[in-house]
């Protein structure tokens, strides 16, 4: 199986602050990778490097065998890299439905009724159908989080980057989210998920990647990684069970 995403020796510094130092990993089509690490470890920077928000100082990002390191943000979105942010960014002045039509028509390149059908399907799956015609700016925080995921799905991603999507959810909501994410996996969407709620993460992902101070600390089967003494040092008292 060929890798869908291959990240090779990524480096990124802001002045003397190294936020990403020689990070390499790859993920196969259909796989799910969890990313953990303390706050400020460079997890979100890694997402920005993959999705195209920032360019690395050196290193390459291969997507589907294509070198996308110098691709623009919108080009990567059209190629199939979708992402959701930790802090939701809805288009506040547009309705929830319109928010999804943007991705459906410009990233997934669907026209007219096809775009609408995709938007409605995504609304249904993320539980936002009743809110379709409400302005996105009026949503509650939980609804905004759902919309954030829905917007990423409206671009029909082959690779979906989720940034701390479970933060602030109740146990029940978290369970629903895990079910939704598992159903996405079944459809063949490849996932990279940054999450502090490790038990939710471990219930979904095949592998874990641990980052600390911009450096890859460990990578592998979730339980093995969580049992690594160095990882336990960071995540004191948090077990994978």
């Amino acid at each position, binding site marked *: 199986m060929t890798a869908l995403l291959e990240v090779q020796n990524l480096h990124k510094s802001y002045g003397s602050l190294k936020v990403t130092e020689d990070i390499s990993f790859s993920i196969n089509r259909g796989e799910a990778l969890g990313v953990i690490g303390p706050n400020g470890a460079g997890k979100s920077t890694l997402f920005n490097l993959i*999705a195209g*928000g920032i360019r690395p100082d050196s290193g390459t990002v291969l997507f589907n065998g294509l070198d996308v390191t110098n691709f*623009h*943000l*919108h*080009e990567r*979105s*059209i190629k199939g890299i*979708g*992402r959701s942010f930790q802090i939701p*960014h809805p*288009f*506040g*002045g*547009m309705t929830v439905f*319109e*928010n999804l*039509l*943007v*991705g459906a*028509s*410009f*990233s*997934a*390149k669907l026209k007219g009724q096809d*775009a609408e059908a995709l938007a409605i399907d995504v609304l249904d799956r993320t539980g936002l159908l009743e809110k379709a015609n409400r302005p996105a*700016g009026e949503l509650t925080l939980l609804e905004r989080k759902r919309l954030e995921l829905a*917007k990423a799905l*409206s*671009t029909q991603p082959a690779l979906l980057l989720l940034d701390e999507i479970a933060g602030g959810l109740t146990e029940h909501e978290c369970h629903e989210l895990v079910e939704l994410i598992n159903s996405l996996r079944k459809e063949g969407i490849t996932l990279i998920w940054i999450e502090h709620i490790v038990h939710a993460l471990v219930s979904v992902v095949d592998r874990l990647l641990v980052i600390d101070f911009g450096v890859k600390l460990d990578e592998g089967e979730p339980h093995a990684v969580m049992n690594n003494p160095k990882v336990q040092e960071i995540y004191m008292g948090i077990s994978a069970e």
Partner: protein
Amino acid sequence: MEWINTIIQGVLLGGLYALFATGLSLMFGIMRLVNIAHGDLIVLAAYVGLVVVETLGVHPVVGLIIVVPIMAGLGYLLQRALLNRTLGSDILPPLLVTFGLSIIIQNLLLEIFSADSRRINVGELDVASITINDQISIGVMPLIVLILAILVIFALQFLFYKTGLGRAFRATSDDQDIARLMGISNKHIFGLAMAVAMAVVAIAGVLLAMRTNFDPAIGPSRLLYGFEAVIIGGLGSLWGTLAGGLILGISQAIGAKIDPGWQILMGHLMFLAILVVRPRGLFPRSVD
């Protein structure tokens, strides 16, 4: 009755100001671009209109079919080649570059067309009017301008709220980076936004040329009226911009009624008064 006539004339004048302002409103609303060259682009469109009408011998309104695409195309190229490079977190570069553009356009027009005052001849339409009673009569030409201004705003509302391109404009206006993440090329969308704005500029320029005399130096004062109308109406609201244009027109008409020398002053005073009472304009789009 005389005052009613004054207000009607003000409304008609306001239609033209609203057209001046709509292009500015679009550029600022979508790209946060403050275009100092806006007035000069209107004058440029007036000259393009003049050349088209005189060369082809067509009616100016028919000439719009040619002038609008020319200006829209120019707008797209201008945005892609120059203005996109000035946009960023700093507001100063677009101001400086469009200020320079303003000087360049004025001097180019002066070089090509001289400083003579020109006008597009519309024949009988110029003096045609609808007489309501012995004190009120409505000029046909100003009425056409007002109706066109309203149609333009209806068309833009439709474009913004009912089409995919409009959603892209609104999404980009809301958050550029997130719009890009949704597959929108912001540079292309900005080019299209400028093309739409310049299409409106083309209409405003040709109508200006049909209504009054113009020369290469009148751009900056058109810019000022445009700015005032946009700010009175509230940034980012198209209907607000129309209202701003009408308020400015009515104020000027009332000023002129009191004393001919007060026409321009009265418009500025009304602008300042509204800024004092409603600093964000009459119909601000949102609290951001």
